[in-house]
């Protein structure tokens, strides 16, 4: 009967119930959709970061990362074959770290050679700084293998758009010229990055590879990038702030609506008190209504969130212009649904709606019945 009464009251004060209903739907949609956007952002930029850092990094054991003349991994092809036999979707990327630091005023950069491309890349920034273009000749100062300083004159053959960083333009110097002036074996693989689809498995896969290659150092990303999670937690703060504002608005609307609904029913509630209801029963009666409305709001809201998120997942947010500035922002952002977070949103909103209805409920329940009854409507 409590339930029946609550439902009929919801329909009797339909407009007010609808206000709460719609307000809660908007809140749950706002929370869940913003959650999905931040979740998508996190997942995508995390993958981008991990791809460029290597989900698993392989080096020779005993190498000092600060030693420019490291010993390489000799049998790369064999290593690659064996990695792929364990991780079929692995992308095995050999890296040839140049033992050179290019110096220009205060600006320095590691020349990095991606083995498969057989081209030397210098960053766009450097190119801009040098005001150099294809056909120009630039002078590169570097330390050589023997520890001395070499000075080399290099002619820029062409300016290419780098495939990895879309939109960026890099200067390309033929690899043989690099070899010549750096006295450096470009065929030697110094590091291997292994990327694959499920980055969560990096830990267990690393252990597997460690057993296969006893003379190689195999580190998963989570050992090297310990702070990655906290980095993403910072990006969450913005979302929490947004949620907080949404919830604040919701709380005001809910409290106001419930308050005016109980005030309108003062006489009824006073009568129920007079004929022997406890305060708790009155609170129960009012909260039951709120719980029912909240329940349906959450159902409908989650449904709308799903539709909206699915739509956004097809369209995506286009961030090309921003993404150009840093390699870790995905050019097109696709939201991702994390069911756990959605459930947390629902539970939180439930609790929130009840919390803000408690005050009006308690207020009317504590009102002396004579006072509630005197109300003439």
């Amino acid at each position: 009967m409590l339930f029946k009464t609550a439902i009929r009251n919801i329909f009797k004060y339909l407009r007010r119930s609808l206000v709460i209903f719609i307000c809660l739907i908007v809140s749950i949609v706002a929370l869940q959709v913003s959650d999905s956007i931040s979740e998508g952002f996190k997942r995508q930029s995390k993958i981008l970061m991990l791809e460029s850092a290597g989900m698993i990094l392989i080096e020779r054991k005993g190498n000092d990362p600060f030693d420019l003349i490291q010993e390489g991994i000799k049998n790369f092809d064999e290593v690659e074959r064996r990695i792929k036999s364990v991780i079929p979707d692995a992308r095995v990327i050999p890296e040839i770290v140049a033992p050179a630091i290019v110096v220009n005023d205060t600006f320095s950069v590691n020349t990095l050679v991606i083995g498969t491309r057989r081209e030397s890349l210098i960053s766009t920034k450097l190119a801009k700084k040098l005001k150099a273009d294809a056909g120009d000749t630039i002078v590169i100062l570097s330390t050589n293998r023997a520890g001395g300083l070499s000075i080399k004159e290099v002619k820029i053959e062409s300016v290419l758009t780098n495939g990895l960083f879309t939109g960026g333009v890099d200067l390309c110097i033929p690899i043989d010229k690099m070899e010549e002036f750096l006295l450096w074996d470009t065929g030697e693989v110094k590091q291997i990055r292994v990327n694959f689809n499920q980055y969560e498995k990096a830990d267990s896969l690393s252990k597997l590879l460690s057993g296969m290659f006893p003379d190689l150092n195999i580190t998963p990303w989570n050992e090297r990038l310990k702070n990655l999670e906290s980095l993403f937690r910072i990006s969450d703060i913005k979302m929490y702030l947004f949620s907080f504002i949404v919830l604040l608005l919701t709380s005001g609307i809910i409290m106001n609506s419930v308050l005016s609904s109980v005030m309108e029913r003062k006489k009824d509630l006073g009568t129920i008190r007079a004929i022997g209801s406890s305060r708790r029963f009155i609170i129960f009666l009012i909260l039951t209504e709120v719980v029912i409305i909240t329940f349906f709001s959450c159902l409908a809201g989650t449904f709308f969130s799903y539709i909206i998120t699915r739509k956004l997942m097809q369209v995506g947010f286009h961030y090309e212009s921003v993404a150009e500035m840093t390699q870790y922002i995905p050019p097109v952002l696709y939201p991702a649904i994390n069911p756990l977070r959605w459930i947390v949103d629902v539970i939180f909103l439930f609790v929130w709606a009840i919390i803000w209805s408690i005050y009006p409920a308690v207020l009317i329940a504590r009102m002396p019945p004579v006072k509630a009854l005197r109300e003439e409507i």
Partner: protein
Amino acid sequence: MLIELKGVKKDYPLGRTVVHAIRGVDLEISEGDFTVIAGPSGSGKTTLLNLMGLLDHPTEGKLFFEGRDVSRISDRDATFIRRSRIGFIFQTFNLIPVLTAIENVELPLLLKRMKGKERRKRAEEALAAVGLGDKLYHKPDELSGGERQRVAIARAIAGMPDIILADEPTANLDSETGLSIIKLMKEMNREQGVTFVFSTHDARIIEVARRKIELLDGKVGSDVVQNSNS
């Protein structure tokens, strides 16, 4: 003795002044009484009934319910006594608009934690007793004023209280209907032995009562037994 008032006073603060609504009333209500509280508007009838119904506390004096001092009773205990021993009938009927007649009558039984089947049976009986056995599923707004007050009487008697307090139960009814409501109450009093205390302005209704307490300016003007035979 069901209810006993000893030197009861009730003041209401009103702005900077104080309204002395009840200025010292000594009164006893025994089981089986059928008492009317008469008096002009503002004489304190509502206030007195609220005190007897444990809806309010006296400012001074003592109020006893079955010999127990309830002048300073807690809300919890007052609720319990109201629920189990007192029935109320209101001037404006005060039925719960979203509930049907039978659900309105069931409500106090629900508060007493009576089980569904028994509750329904009792409510049906109570409605039949007030002559509304055929309107169980009508909502209050589908009933006439007289019928609404009958539902209210059924609601009050269904819980088998020791006393029913009714503040101007006929004021919102035409005088014929009002009279029939009072006659119904009297019938309940005679047949089921329910104690009634009610207030009214209406001279015709005052006549029907067995005992008449006249309230004047918050004091008992007269207290007479007028037709002991009925």
